[in-house]
């Protein structure tokens, strides 16, 4: 068994930042990741980092824009923390050598982004995430922080009290992808999940193949609720054939969207009369699909994004990476023709419920980055707000896990006296455990409460049994079939436009996937680098996460942010200024709600109509 003070799961932006912070606070910290750190999906982020750096801008404007962008579902303490900490944390990246784009006077460049009242998106070409990821990995190397790369974390080692709020997390169980050995990692002070997004729950996504919601699913099964999972961002400009992302930076620099009739539809069809192409992402994604649905799409599928008028020099200077992506993945030369684009699943606003310090309701269990929901992004994330979230809340989680006092959080977590139970919605099928799979995150064996070491050991034994069971089965169904069925259901029925009947259909299909998963088997008999086994375990995680997305989409009968419901075309502030929380409840999911916090430190963010 390995032992450290703090274990960070995942080595993207949030995980690396958390590890550095914990290390600086004097902790013995280790990173356990299924990928080598530089392979993490943070590297694919293109646009930039929002931070109020310049005179004339200030954090309060950033907070206001973020709250408006969230459609008033962000929690003010989280939003204000983000806006206040982002400038200093962005500067720290510069001091670590990150190659930001520069102005003539040598200062870092900033550019306009959708939904921002000031050009505060700090960037490094159109490959900001790549530079952020590598810069932070460099700092991890500098500090000699231990990295267990290509170790796949399967489960958390959590105690088994009845109430999740009484439980505690003491480590993780992981298997070494290269050898197939399953081992325990004991964490004396805390486990920080930084496992990224669950984009692979969808068929058309900008997310990497590795974005399988592992942290979401493990925390969920261990008792931490998942929050606002129905809020999925569909990025307006992904390439149609692969889902590869074309940065919002293109529109930030002046790129224009046209329909098949050559109309600049964002203005000409009145979707966003002031901001046009730079309206919030949810607004632009719906506009594009409306154009396609009304017969003005190109090839009935996509629209055109044109940047030719920016000129070759400016494009090469600021958006060169976009030219490569369009050429390599769509065969289009962005200098001579418009690029085809359509909405693609891009980001999960929701995630593991945490407070401003990254803590879940389970003692010793933290989450940061896309897998967490603080909640900063609420109903819709603004472009350029994901990277500051990684560095701000990764840092805070790392410090807090290492024992630093960050003050009493204002955000509450877990089931408590401030929540309201869901009572009205009729579910088409029973969600949750299908009965045969025993891989709960909780060390429930009915035995006496063990010490931390005993809890980890018991979980290791369960995980070994689970692997053996999957490997020993000789026939049944393979994960690829289940995963494809799940992805199709989500992209068909829980996409940009959602209907009650569609979402119910998705829930039924998810249930089928869960039942089929009882007969899943791993064909590859090898213990060496068995990706068949790893993907099989990931698929289970995707099923759990997809189900919470669909459940959230069904119960929230309003239109807010990225969540659009055909039968409910208005934002219902009287009823829905609250977060959706779904708790695994040992296989019998519970749905409840917690009010959103709109009171900031100096002012209250009054919900206003959101127009761009």
């Amino acid at each position, binding site marked *: 068994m390995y032992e450290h003070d703090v274990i960070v799961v995942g080595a993207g932006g949030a995980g690396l930042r958390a590890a550095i912070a914990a290390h600086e606070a004097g902790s013995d910290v280790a990173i356990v990741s299924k990928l080598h750190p530089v392979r993490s999906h943070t590297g694919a982020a293109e646009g930039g980092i929002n931070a109020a750096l310049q005179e004339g801008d200030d954090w309060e404007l950033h907070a206001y824009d973020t709250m408006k962008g969230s459609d008033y579902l962000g929690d003010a303490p989280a939003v204000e923390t983000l806006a206040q900490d982002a400038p200093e944390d962005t500067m720290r990246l510069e001091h670590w050598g990150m190659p930001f784009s520069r102005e003539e006077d040598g200062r870092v460049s900033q550019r306009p982004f959708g939904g921002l009242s000031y050009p505060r998106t700090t960037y490094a070409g159109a490959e900001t995430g790549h530079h952020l990821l590598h810069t932070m990995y460099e700092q991890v190397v500098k500090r000699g922080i231990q990295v267990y790369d290509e170790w796949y974390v399967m489960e958390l080692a959590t105690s088994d009290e009845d109430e999740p709020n009484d439980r505690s997390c003491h480590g993780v169980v992981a298997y070494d992808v290269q050898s197939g050995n399953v081992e325990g990692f004991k964490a004396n002070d805390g486990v920080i999940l930084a496992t990224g997004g669950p984009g692979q729950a969808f068929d058309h996504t900008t997310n990497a*193949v590795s974005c399988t919601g592992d942290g979401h699913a493990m925390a969920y099964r261990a008792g931490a609720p998942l929050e606002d999972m129905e809020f999925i961002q569909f990025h307006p400009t992904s390439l149609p054939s692969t889902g590869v992302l074309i940065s919002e930076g293109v529109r930030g620099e002046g790129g224009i969207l046209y329909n098949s009739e050559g109309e600049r539809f964002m203005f000409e069809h009145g979707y966003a009369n002031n901001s046009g192409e730079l309206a919030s992402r949810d607004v632009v994604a719906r506009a594009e699909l409306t154009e396609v649905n009304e017969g003005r799409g190109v090839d009935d599928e996509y629209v055109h994004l044109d940047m030719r008028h920016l000129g070759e020099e400016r494009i090469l200077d600021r958006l060169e990476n976009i030219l490569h992506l369009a050429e390599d993945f769509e065969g289009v030369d962005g200098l001579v023709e418009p690029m085809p684009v359509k909405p693609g699943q891009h980001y999960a606003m929701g995630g593991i419920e945490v407070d401003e310090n990254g803590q879940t309701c389970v003692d010793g269990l933290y989450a940061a980055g896309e897998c967490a929901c603080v909640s900063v992004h609420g109903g819709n994330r603004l472009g350029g707000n994901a990277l500051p979230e990684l560095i701000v809340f990764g840092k805070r989680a790392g410090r807090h896990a290492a024992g630093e006092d960050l003050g009493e959080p204002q955000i509450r977590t877990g089931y408590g006296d401030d929540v309201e139970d869901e009572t009205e919605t009729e579910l088409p099928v029973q969600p949750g455990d299908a009965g045969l799979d025993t891989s709960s995150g909780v060390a429930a064996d009915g035995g006496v409460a063990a010490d931390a070491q005993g809890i980890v050991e018991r979980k290791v034994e369960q995980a070994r049994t689970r692997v053996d069971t999957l490997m020993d089965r000789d026939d049944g169904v393979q994960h690829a079939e289940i995963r494809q069925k799940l992805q199709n259901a989500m992209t068909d029925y829980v996409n940009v436009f959602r209907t009650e009947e569609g979402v119910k259909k998705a829930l039924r299909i998810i249930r089928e996937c869960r039942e089929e998963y009882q007969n899943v088997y791993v064909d590859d008999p*090898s213990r060496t680098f068995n990706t*068949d086994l790893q993907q099989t375990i990931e698929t289970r995680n995707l099923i759990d996460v997809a189900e919470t997305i669909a459940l959230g989409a069904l119960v929230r009968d309003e239109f807010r942010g990225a969540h659009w419901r055909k039968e409910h075309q208005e934002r219902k502030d009287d009823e829905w200024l609250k977060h959706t929380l779904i708790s695994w409840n040992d296989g019998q999911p519970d749905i409840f709600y917690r009010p959103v916090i709109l009171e900031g430190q100096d002012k209250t963010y009054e919900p206003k109509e959101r127009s761009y």
Partner: protein
Amino acid sequence: MSTQQQQPEEPQSQEAPEDPEMRGAESPVDEKEKQGGDIDQQTTPEDELEGETVHIKVFRYDPEVEGKQEPRFDDFHVPFEKGMTVLDAVMYARDTYDSSLTFRHSCRQAVCGSDAFFVNGKQRLGCKTQIADLEQPIRIEPLPHQEVVKDLVVDMDHFYDQMHTVEPYFQDEDTPNPADLEEQRQSPENREKIKMSSRCIWCGACMSSCNIAAGDNDYLGPAAINKAYKFAMDDREGEEIKEHRLRILEQEHGVWRCQTQFSCTEVCPKDIPLTEHIQELKREAVKKNLKFW
């Protein structure tokens, strides 16, 4: 743990029909390897491939599975789709025909650097190599000169060790207090100077293509030298640290080992002028009157 794949042996249990392109043990360098270049000489126009299947031959090896302990090639026929890449083809083969087919991959957009393979005799990123640009049958092998763990997966530890040798992190203890929101100034020209070097995605294609690295296990290799270049050319680091970096680079297994064959530059999927960067560092070392090997 694994077999050294210096040059794959003629597979003994090969199921495929005789392949005229197949290298024999006697002729370790095949024609295509010599030609290099971005695409194969004879390719099929994309529209002619519509509705067709693509023939791929994939290297297979697993140290603990009977029948795979001796390296072999498996044949797969994959339905062609417009825009299909080598990665798409092996993913299709894995998900449809053989779930034990093993390779690294993640982002699918040439930024994570996981899927560098040896495709038709050249190091390429699977995700940004179009099937339509390749001659069939397409031979897909693990990166040469690295230990094979299984199928297309190679052991990257040596590559990472070399990257870490050059102290790949910004070194300046004299930075401002972040709370003052004061950045270190850098001219756009200097930022442009390091731009290409900063694009490296650690895929290992360059190291695998380098004959010197193949013969000298201690050679830092193109990727690590390029990483050092990024810092050495960045004006934000002081002169003292630059000299320290040059001292690491001018050692016996450093920049002077490069014989300017340009093989690394030819295979780099991010078009980094690696050989030029190495040459520039040699000049810098001379200017500083450092030891000449």
